[in-house]
């Protein structure tokens, strides 16, 4: 198993905080919505991903276990 970031799209309101905190993992599209790094989160970035997830004011960032 590995961890993966995903966005709960109806919740996400393009606050952009996530990308500010974790630019290594998240960039913003033309309208300010996050694009997350595809594939598993590199182990050294898991804590950063968790911080980004917690920072989202509407809890729109999901971190899930996915089978390898």
């Amino acid at each position: 198993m590995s961890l993966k970031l995903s966005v709960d799209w109806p919740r996400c309101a393009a606050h952009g905080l996530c990308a500010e905190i974790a630019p290594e993992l998240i960039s913003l599209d033309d309208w300010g919505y996050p694009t997350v790094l595809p594939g598993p989160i590199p182990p050294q970035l898991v804590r950063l991903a968790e911080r980004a997830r917690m920072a989202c004011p509407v809890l729109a960032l999901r971190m899930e276990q996915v089978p390898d």
Partner: protein
Amino acid sequence: MSGATALAGVGTGPRLLAGLGNGQRLDLAAHLEVHGPVTSLRTRRRAEHPLIEAIAEAGVRGRGGAGFPTASKLRAVKAAGRRPVVVINGSEGEPLSQKDTLLLLRTPHLVLDGAAAVAEALGAKEVVVYLHRGREAVERSVQAAIRERDDASLFTLVAGPARYVAGESSAVANFLSGGPAIPTTTPPRVSERGVGGRPTMLSNAETYAHIGLVARHGPEWFRTVGTASEPGTLLLTITGAVQAPGVVEVPFGTLISTALELAGGVSDASVGYLLGGYAGTWMRPEIANDLALASMVMRERRAGIGVGLIAVLPQAACVLAETANIMRWLANESARQCGPCLNGLPAIAEATEALATGRVDEFVLGKLERWARMVEGRGSCHHPGGAVQTLRSALDTFADHTNQHLMSGPCSQAHRTWLAIPAVPTGPDADFR
């Protein structure tokens, strides 16, 4: 539904459309005469319910667009462990598709039989027939059929908003749970947590009709036509520049040209076919004609069977103008809850319109591809991905014509379009209620 014809399949008698010649509608007596009663299937392994085993062995795949193996879904619902709800998705939101409507109008008992057999196999006590509002004839047909049956109390009919995404499975479950008919974020899937939080077996009306026959004749019979990976037949709506537009039934693996002959043949030279629906694939006739209706073959051409639709565009038409109309419609049909879909689809529609009917430079193609990548897979449902599929196939397949637009502006056909676009919704439909 106007002009729908039920034609025989190739190399086999019709299955779903059996007994429907001359515009007949099969009431219960006629239905039993044509198809016979449902008898119990014998089990081989007894590891699971004989119907689920039979559906797995038959290799039934969903006919709602994605072609997902039906047995896998049944097993997921069963594994959820609680008493499930069965839903027949008869919403048929694809504007040109008529196959589910045809089944529910003319042979409703086949669909209900399939759903009743599934309910029995899953231990469900409730089957919901879900339709889009405004199709009174379909509602009357389904109500009349339910009243005729011994198991009438199993069924309820619910009509939801007549919106394209309202037919997506999580949107259906959301509406049947009292919410708006807009998709929800997955997981959970509806098979796990759907209507009222219960595991929900939701399939397309045609899928249940096939199950109604598997329940009678078993998997070996089912596999006698079609291909090894896609056994059986499928319904196709054939529309546009053909002599006899309507619904035909053909085995999987049938050539597209053969299917078109069943609809009377192409009536005029054609510039291109739209395969699979408004969220579909444009293809040149000379390539499409020789293509088999088999997912593996079509995938190589980056196409799919989708909901089973072939729209034949006449020669005197502009694919870009048609695509621009489709993009605008798909943008209007967004549930507007996911940022990329809400912002991206209108941006794509506007740029496609400019390309089709205005004067633009080649940068528009880069913009379109950039936005296509930005909306694809970035929403709660596959709506944006479907739009991108149609757009990319138009630009790739008709690259020459696109260049002509870029160099000399709109072509002489660009201001007249052929494909029907539904009106902008009003009333409760407007907010998916």
